[in-house]
C-alpha cells in the first residue's frame, strides 16, 4: 500500500484492496504468526462519538498484533477536547502514538485531520461521510462467500444516510460487479454518490435503483441489508409502513438463489428476522468477526511501512 492514511474507500484501488484482503486472509489463517509483530507500538483511539463495536474491534486488532492502545475516552469526560480544535487534538495525540484511529461527527474530519499529522490515520467514520475499514471487512466477507468478480449485489435499506453503503459502493466499483440499490424513494442514494459511481465506472454503468426487493432478489449473489432509522420519518406509522417493506425473513428468502449471502453491518433491529440466523444465507456475524483480521492487516501494513522511518 502506498498510502499513509486510510480516509476513504474512494482512494483505495483494486490493488490496495487486494493487498489488504490477502494479508487479512494470511492473518486469519495463522494469527499466532503476528502475535508479537508490533510489540511496543501504540494506537491512539480518538472517538468523538460513541461506537463501542468499532472501537473494540480496533483495540482487539492492535492487541492481537502485540501492540497496545491509548484511548482519549468519551468526549464528555475528556478535558483535552474541550474547546480545542480537532487539528490541535490530533497533533497532540500524534506525539504519543504510532498511528491514530479517528471517528468524528463532522464530514471530512478525517481528511482534515490527516493534513495535520505524520503518523498513519485511519478513518473510523466521519459524520455521514466515509467508513473505509467497515468497507474492507465487507469486501473481505464478500470475497470469502461469493467472490468479488462477476458479482451481483443488492444493497438495501437507508441508502441516503448510510455511510457504510456509500463506502462499499465506491470500493465495489473497482471490481466486475452489478450493483442494485433497493430503498424507499425518500432514502435513495444521494445524487453525489450516483454521480461519483458513474464517473468511477466510466462507460459501464453497473448501477440500478429499485424500490422493491422482489424485482432483483432472484439474481443476487449477495444481499447487503442496512437499517432504516426511525428518525428519518415524520411519524411512527409512516416509519412502520415503509420499514416493513424492507425487512427479510425466511419467507422472503424463498425467492432467493440457494447461494445467496446475506450481510448486515450490525447492529440490526428488525430488518433481518432472527429465524434467518441459522440458515446458510446468514453471514453477518462472520462479517462482524472479520473486522479483527482486516483491521490487523491494515494496521500491520501501515505500521510496517512506517517502521524504521529510514526508508522514505
Amino acid at each position, binding site marked *: 500500500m502506498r498510502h499513509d492514511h486510510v480516509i476513504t474507500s474512494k482512494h483505495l484501488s483494486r490493488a490496495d484492496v487486494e493487498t489488504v484482503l490477502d494479508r487479512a486472509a494470511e492473518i486469519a489463517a495463522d494469527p499466532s504468526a503476528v502475535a508479537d509483530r508490533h510489540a511496543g507500538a501504540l494506537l491512539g483511539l480518538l472517538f468523538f462519538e460513541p461506537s463501542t463495536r468499532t472501537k473494540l474491534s480496533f483495540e482487539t486488532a492492535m492487541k492481537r498484533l502485540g501492540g497496545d492502545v491509548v484511548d482519549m475516552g468519551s468526549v464528555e469526560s475528556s478535558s483535552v477536547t474541550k474547546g480545542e480544535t480537532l487539528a490541535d487534538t490530533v497533533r497532540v495525540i500524534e506525539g504519543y502514538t504510532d498511528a491514530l484511529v479517528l471517528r468524528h461527527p463532522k464530514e471530512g474530519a478525517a481528511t482534515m485531520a490527516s493534513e495535520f499529522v505524520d503518523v498513519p490515520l485511519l478513518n473510523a467514520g466521519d459524520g455521514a*461521510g466515509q467508513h473505509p475499514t467497515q468497507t474492507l471487512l465487507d469486501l473481505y466477507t464478500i470475497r470469502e462467500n461469493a467472490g468479488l468478480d462477476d458479482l451481483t449485489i443488492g444493497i438495501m435499506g437507508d441508502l441516503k444516510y448510510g455511510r457504510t453503503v456509500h463506502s462499499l459502493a465506491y470500493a465495489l466499483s473497482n471490481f466486475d460487479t452489478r450493483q442494485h440499490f433497493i430503498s424507499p424513494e425518500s432514502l435513495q442514494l444521494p445524487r453525489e454518490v450516483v454521480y461519483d459511481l458513474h464517473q468511477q465506472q466510466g462507460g459501464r454503468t453497473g448501477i440500478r435503483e429499485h424500490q422493491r426487493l422482489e424485482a432483483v432478489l432472484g439474481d443476487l449473489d449477495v444481499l447487503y441489508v442496512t437499517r432504516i432509522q426511525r428518525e428519518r420519518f415524520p411519524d411512527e406509522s409512516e416509519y412502520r409502513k415503509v420499514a416493513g417493506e424492507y425487512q427479510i425473513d425466511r419467507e422472503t428468502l424463498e425467492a432467493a438463489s440457494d447461494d445467496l449471502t446475506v450481510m448486515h453491518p450490525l447492529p440490526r433491529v428488525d430488518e433481518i428476522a432472527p429465524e434467518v440466523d441459522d440458515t446458510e444465507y446468514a453471514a453477518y456475524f462472520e462479517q462482524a468477526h472479520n473486522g479483527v483480521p482486516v483491521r490487523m492487516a491494515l494496521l500491520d501494513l501501515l505500521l510496517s511501512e512506517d517502521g524504521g522511518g529510514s526508508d522514505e
Partner: protein
Amino acid sequence: MSDEGDDRSEHELRVSKIHNGTVIDHINGGQALNVLAILGIDGSQGEEISVGMNVPSDRLARKDIVKVEGRELSQDEVDVLSLIAPDATINIVREYDVVEKHRVERPEVVVGVLSCPNDGCISTGDEPVDSRFEVVDDGVRCSYCGTIVREGIASLIEH
C-alpha cells in the same frame, strides 16, 4: 475586431482609461461585485477601482467591467473568476496600453474563496483550515465533505 468592440464599450462606459493595472472585461452582467469579492478587493487598501455594470455588449447581452488601477492580477488570481464569469477577459495595462490579454481558465481547485454549504462539514467550523473545492465538470466539490455545488456558487463566496 475585438479591439473595436472594446473601444466602443469604453465610450459607452465613460470610465476613464487606466494608467497601469488590470481591466476585467466581459463579466456576466450583475457579477462585478462578486468578482471584486472573490479577488478580495474592497477598496480598503486605497486602490482605485472603476466598476461598470450592465453595459451593452456584443458578446453578452449585458456585461460588467472592472478596472483595478495599480495592480496586475496573475492568471492564478483570475482563474477562480471562471466559476462566476466564464467569459471574462483579462487585460493587463501598462502606460495606458494593453500589454497582455487573456481569458480565464477553469482552475483545478479553489482555496479559501468559497465556503461549504454543508453545515455538517468540518471546513465550516473553527478548524484552522481554508475551504477547498475541486472544480468538476458542472460545478465545484468540497474537498472535505464531498458536497457538490452546481448552482448559486456566487452565494458561497467568503467575505
